[in-house]
């Protein structure tokens, strides 16, 4: 019971999305498929699930359990042949109970003309028994954690009894993207249990660390080609990253060492923005702030500093970005930006006026307006400066696209939603750095971003800091902070519980991870 894809090529007008890719997925093993955005991994998944068809003239074959196919005609045929998929979007209806959400994708058992709710519950209980999910079927779906939701989605996709026997492969198409780091391990242990049932599991993911801990095999795609395939234990993180990014890693990093911040200064000169204050002057002071989980929190941020803030979920780390962004009101205490006190009843508009720019964590909802163009998104916060100056607007967007490396270039009028996650994130950074804020707060900037863009984003953060903008980063991947922050504060019970700095050598991966999870 294995799934094999041989010599698969897929062409679109003008682009070759996959070039002669051959892969074997063995039963009982978790096979990680890695690659930057646009490397062809989604195309591969779509070929296996019958959405795209391999080029006829290349002799591509898909072999499921010994049966050879030229291509799989449609998703329903793929399902018939035993290929089960869990996508990034949850197939569960959030205000239904878990039992009903599951029943929705199966047939409802009927008693006469009515739905037999007892049988629904029984079915789901049995299904959860098979997959060792400990959950009450009457729970509302919206009360599940992301990991639990994905576990239910996998169980639903595979099914039990006859359906389980017919399952030839499980594809997790970035299904883990919505799961926070802290729950990832729990989820992956569950994936392992499914693999142990003798099912080949294909995991398309952005999570390197998780892949290295829980997968058996790894294949890396780059520009539509298979550049690496082998056992995961023979690889290192560096090896994987270097295979994923197009340019060698060093080249990207050198970029800013050259003339850090120069590009941003040029941008602000073009716009005639005020110049930033000198290095090491305080730009943000938070004094004894009380709001929800925050309990007398005080901290100070200086220009040129990159401050990371971490903590477990109820330490106040979720509220602080909302507070700074003006979405959450203070109960007491004060926030001083650039010497001016922020009014107690804040709003996002007031926060922006005061010089606080925030990059929110849910890109699709609060980060950008997906059906609007790149240009509109980038210039949104200060559209009033551009609406009557077409040339300036064009020059600004072009310059931003260059500085922030937003690809594909020259597509100013393309819908924002059509850009990949990494490029969207870089464009959103541009949007908030354009008005030259006093403080730039990034809430989980690397969420759902490919490794190459991630390096670029860190690079940009460093150059913004060099241009004397105060930077605060909240991250769910705390290890990432080591590379970019000069100081990390750990929140605990609503106030600062610990401080790690580069100077005294306490800023290490282990130390950050410890504050994040315990």
């Amino acid at each position: 019971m294995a799934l094999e894809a041989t010599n698969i090529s897929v062409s679109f007008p003008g682009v070759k999305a996959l070039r002669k890719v051959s892969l074997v997925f063995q039963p009982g093993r978790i096979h990680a498929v890695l690659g930057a955005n646009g490397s062809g991994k989604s195309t591969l998944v779509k070929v296996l699930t019958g959405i795209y068809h391999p080029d006829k003239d290349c002799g591509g074959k898909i072999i499921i359990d010994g049966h050879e196919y030229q291509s799989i005609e449609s998703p329903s045929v793929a399902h018939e042949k035993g290929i089960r998929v869990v996508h990034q979007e949850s197939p569960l209806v959030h205000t239904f109970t878990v039992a009903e959400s599951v029943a929705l994708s199966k047939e409802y058992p009927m008693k006469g003309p009515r739905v037999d709710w007892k049988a629904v519950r029984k079915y789901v209980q049995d299904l959860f028994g098979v997959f060792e999910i400990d959950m009450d079927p009457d729970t509302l779906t919206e009360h599940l954690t992301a990991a639990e939701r994905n576990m239910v989605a996998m169980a639903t996709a595979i099914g039990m009894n006859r359906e389980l026997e017919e399952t030839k492969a499980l594809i997790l198409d970035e299904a883990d993207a919505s799961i926070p780091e802290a729950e990832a391990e729990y989820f992956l242990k569950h994936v392992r249990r499914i693999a142990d049932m003798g099912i080949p599991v294909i995991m398309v993911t952005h999570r390197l660390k998780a892949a290295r801990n829980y997968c058996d095999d790894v294949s890396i795609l780059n520009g539509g080609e298979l550049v690496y395939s082998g056992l995961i234990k023979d690889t290192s993180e560096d090896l994987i990253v270097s295979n994923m990014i197009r340019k060698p890693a060093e080249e990207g990093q050198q970029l800013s060492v050259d003339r850090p911040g120069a590009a941003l200064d040029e941008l602000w000169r073009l716009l005639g923005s005020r110049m930033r204050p000198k290095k090491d002057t305080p730009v943000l002071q938070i004094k004894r702030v009380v709001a929800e989980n925050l309990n007398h929190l005080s901290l100070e941020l200086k220009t040129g500093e990159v401050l990371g803030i971490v903590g477990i979920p109820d330490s106040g780390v979720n509220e602080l970005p909302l507070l700074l962004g003006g979405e959450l009101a203070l109960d007491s205490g004060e926030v001083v930006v650039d010497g001016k006190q922020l009014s107690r009843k804040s709003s996002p508009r007031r926060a922006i006026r005061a010089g606080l720019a925030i990059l929110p964590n849910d890109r699709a909802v609060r980060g950008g307006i997906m059906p609007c163009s790149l240009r509109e998104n980038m210039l949104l916060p200060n559209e009033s400066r551009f609406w009557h100056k077409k040339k300036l607007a064009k020059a600004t967007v072009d310059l931003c696209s260059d500085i922030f490396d937003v690809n594909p270039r020259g597509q100013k009028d393309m819908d924002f939603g059509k850009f990949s996650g990494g490029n969207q994130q870089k464009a959103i950074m541009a949007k908030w750095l354009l008005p030259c804020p006093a403080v730039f707060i990034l809430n989980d900037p690397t969420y759902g971003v490919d490794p190459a863009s991630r390096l670029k984003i860190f690079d940009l953060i460093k150059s913004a800091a060099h241009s004397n903008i105060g930077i605060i980063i909240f991250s769910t991947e705390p290890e990432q902070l080591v590379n970019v922050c000069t100081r990390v504060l750990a929140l605990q019970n609503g106030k600062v519980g610990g401080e790690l700095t580069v100077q005294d050598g306490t800023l290490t991966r282990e130390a950050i991870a410890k504050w994040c999870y315990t």
Partner: protein
Amino acid sequence: MHTYKSRFMLLLNKYIIIVIFLIVMAVFGSLSVKFLSMQNLGSVMLTQAIAACLSLGAMFILVSGEFDLSLGYNLNFCAVLCAFLAARGWGAVPVFFASVLMGTFAGLLNGLVVVKLKISSFIVTLSIGLMLSGLSRAVTGGGILSVSEPKALMNFARGSIGPWGYCVIFFLVLALIVHLVFSHTPFGRHMYAVGISTKASFMAGIKVDRIRILAFMCAGMFAGISGAILLGQLGAASSAYGTSLLLPAYAVVFLSKTAIRPGYINIPGLLIATLLISFSKNGVQMIGVPNWGNHIFEGAVLIFAMWLSTRFSVSGRLRSKKTQGKPRTGKGDGGVSNGVGSN
């Protein structure tokens, strides 16, 4: 997890409409002697049966997450069609079914255009409503079509056993059927699922387009039923009758979200909401407010109803002061569920 206070809030959430209803009855009852008389109660229910039937149709639309602004015109055209056919000597049963068929057909048209041409349901249904109102004018010639036949339809629409009008009983039977459809058949459940998340439903293998078209057809069907009853009660039809019933019908459906099963449009809630709206309107008339005041009051009631439905319709999860209006702190789909856990 639940404190004493939150349990109280949960109960209040479920039964607030009933409480308001009782208060309204008590207030108007004490202000007007006739208000609580059997005769008045019976006649209010009789006249409101039409709007109530239409709200059953509106329920299909709102549950599946669409909007149909043509329902009022559809009802009106069906009534006009009934009058036209009745004047040509058709019997009660054929007239009734012609009306139902016409309504359903208009619904099908709405559904096909919205789903297949992928146009916003607001625009489509408003345009189709306009066409229907044009047809009404064409049939009536701008005047009023009065009929005295078929007698059976008139009796059905006007007659009653005690305070219970035949058409009130008919409505209650329809409501029971709709209730069973929504809570106990795959069709009804699919409709809820499509309304809550089209994408999730699509991925669960539901034929989303078909469900949406069927929702429009069901809504049209109820507009047809209401149209026939309207003609039966008034004995006449013009291109203006019945179009004003649209908004109250939707208000009732929205309001049903606040009662019995908070967060869900549900039939028991719809019945209570219908009673609340119709008796408060009637009460205002009974205490002698002039006609123009009545309109103002009705508008205010609708806004109040909408406010109630947004304030008190959070499903299961309580909307305390603390969490109100606060965006979820988790990211996107995978928010860490803090607070109300799975219990």
